[in-house]
């Protein structure tokens, strides 16, 4: 067993060579090589409500099982529920989009020394809030696309990065009514139900089947929850280092049934330093959110509206991510 240095050189050298090659492979496998995942058929929803005056054809959503219909005439118009939050009235209007079943108004405001982009969204029903997956694939590694690419491919008017669910191995995931992953994580999730309401909960304490039975339409698993039942529950001491640091952020907020706020905060620049999780909760509170949830942030924080990225992603260019939330034209 006692090899001499001369004799043992090849296996010592061989070991370090294999170690180097394996390390390189692990890094490439994690950060570069696209692999894994499964194809998810995008939902076919031409218009999401049955409250139309004239229906010319109908189809069944291939994945959701929800009967949808296409229309040739307009549905009943939407009216903005309640008053526009004061913080938005004093902000800059970037643009708006209005159809019979959706009202989207996008603002720019300043808060916590940061540029904040807010999409105030009112929809006829929750089916208008759709989830996009990079290459329509879920669960893979490095299977990523820019939010703008996903938005254009889905004929969206608005899109925002979401929880980058494929980045993790665990955590409930429901997209467009389909359960894509059923393993619970330590995180809190937030669910948008078909009736347009939103609830957050601890995954480990909640049965996914119960959530499905209640009519979950989208379920995001990233977090933390920053506003629950009208009360800010965000804390920079929540044990997540990323919560305490000023960073670019994306967030989802719920005002009331079918009324949502999507927020992106720019960060990591002199003009816009970004916000910590408590400051993000303050922003969501000022918008009137009764539930709010932190999405993937940092370089991923991207908001896209009507053909262009309206915020300034911190890496200069859009970071490619695994998923997004979008609203179709």
């Amino acid at each position, binding site marked *: *067993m*006692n*090899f*001499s*240095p001369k004799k*043992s050189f090849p296996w*010592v050298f061989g*070991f*370090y060579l294999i*170690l180097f090659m*394996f*390390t390189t492979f*692990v*890094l490439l*496998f*994690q*950060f570069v090589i696209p692999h894994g995942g499964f194809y998810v058929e995008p939902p076919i929803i031409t218009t999401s409500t049955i409250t139309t005056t004239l229906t010319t054809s109908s189809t069944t959503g291939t994945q959701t099982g929800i009967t949808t219909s296409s229309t040739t005439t307009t549905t009943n118009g939407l009216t903005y529920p309640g008053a526009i939050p004061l913080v938005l009235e004093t902000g800059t209007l970037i643009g708006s989009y209005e159809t019979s079943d959706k009202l989207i108004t996008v603002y720019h405001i300043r808060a916590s020394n940061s540029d904040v982009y807010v999409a105030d969204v009112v929809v006829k029903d929750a089916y208008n809030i759709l989830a996009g997956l990079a290459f329509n694939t879920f669960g893979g590694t490095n299977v990523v696309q820019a939010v703008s690419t996903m938005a254009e491919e889905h004929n969206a008017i608005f899109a925002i990065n979401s929880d980058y669910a494929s*980045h*993790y*191995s665990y955590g409930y995931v429901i997209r467009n009514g389909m359960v894509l992953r059923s393993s619970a994580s330590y995180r809190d999730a937030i669910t948008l139900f078909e009736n347009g309401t939103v609830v957050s909960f601890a995954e480990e304490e909640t049965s996914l089947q119960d959530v499905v039975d209640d009519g979950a339409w989208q379920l995001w698993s990233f977090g933390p929850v920053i506003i629950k039942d009208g009360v800010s529950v965000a804390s920079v001491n929540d044990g997540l*280092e*990323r919560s*305490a*640091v000023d*960073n670019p952020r994306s967030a989802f907020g719920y005002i009331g049934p079918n009324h949502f706020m999507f927020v992106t905060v720019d960060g*990591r620049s002199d003009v816009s330093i970004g916000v910590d999780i408590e400051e993000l909760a303050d922003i969501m509170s000022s918008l009137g959110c009764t539930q709010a949830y932190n999405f993937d942030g*940092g370089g991923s924080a991207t908001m896209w509206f009507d053909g262009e990225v309206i915020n300034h992603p911190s890496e200069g260019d859009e970071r490619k991510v695994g998923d997004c939330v979008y609203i179709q034209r």
Partner: protein
Amino acid sequence: MSIFKGNNPYLKIAFRYLAFSAFLVLFNFIYSLFAHGVSSFYMTYAFLIPLIGGTLVSFLLYIFPSPDYTSKNLWRMGLITLVIGFLLHGVFDIYGTEEALVSVFFTVGICLLAGSVFLYILLSVKRKKNQN
């Protein structure tokens, strides 16, 4: 008896490992500058592997019998494999992802260290028997 006296071959090795530990501390510090406030337990404490497994063990070898060439190599391989595993785990932690393949480094590293210790004990016992 001072370990700094005489021609101790392990003194040089001990300081090499100490320098490696210092490099890992520096590496963690520089990496954290670009980590946007996120740190990793694994990356932060990676320096302890060469410090304990290298420097401390080298000093101990002044008291205990010298290991043979194979044991020394297995030990070094184990330490380096563990350090790489810790660093990769740290990089993935900071990036916010998980990679099951990292566990290969931990398994291989521990096996190499265990193999080294086993061989060291085996040869020490054999050597003692021969002396008797």
